[in-house]
């Protein structure tokens, strides 16, 4: 098993009600699979599916990116800086 930290921002943090959470996952879990798990836990996140950027350890990732123990994960809702 691996443990990752997920950070929540903006609208996601409002839905989840916290800024970070730790998840223990089976080895080989991908970013996309972790997102599906979060949507199951917080159905209001479902509207963000397909509109996300993915990050692992502050670098952009892909849904197929395989997670490793200790990773910091972020699912980035549509950005609106500038």
């Amino acid at each position: 098993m691996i443990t990752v930290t997920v950070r929540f921002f903006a609208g996601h943090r409002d839905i989840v009600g916290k800024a970070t959470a730790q998840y223990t996952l089976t080895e080989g879990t991908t970013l996309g699979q972790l997102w599906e798990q979060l949507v199951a836990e917080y159905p209001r996140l479902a509207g963000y599916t397909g509109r996300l950027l993915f990050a692992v350890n502050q670098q952009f990732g892909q849904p197929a990116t395989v997670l490793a123990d200790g990773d910091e994960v972020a699912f980035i809702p549509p950005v609106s800086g500038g």
Partner: protein
Amino acid sequence: MVEPFVITTEPLDPAPLVAAVQTPDDGAVVTFSGVVRNHFGGRPTAFLVYEAYTEMAAPVLRQIADEARARWPIGKVCVHHRVGRLEIGETAVLVVVAAPHRDAAFAAAAYIMDRIKEIAPIWKQEHWADGAAEWRE
């Protein structure tokens, strides 16, 4: 010494950034200031709150500048983005690009702003004058 890529809660001042990017090879400096407007889509705004994934956003700003440098012959670049509560008229973002010639400086500055709005992990919460609030997407 001005850090080139910064997320900060402090008010933004372009002067030190302009000074930091200039070299004797550069004939052009383009500065973009993104300023908080008093309305969006016709609805009055009271103030904005910006939030960033700071540890990632600053490196992404650097990555975006590198993308611009791969496309146009430009010199130094500074991008500073403010977070926290911003009032109408305050500056949310400064993009400063030096280049030997103005076409590259204009194109790169515009590109950097486009990319910030596409991929920089920064979010804006609109606080409407009627008291409602929402994250802009």
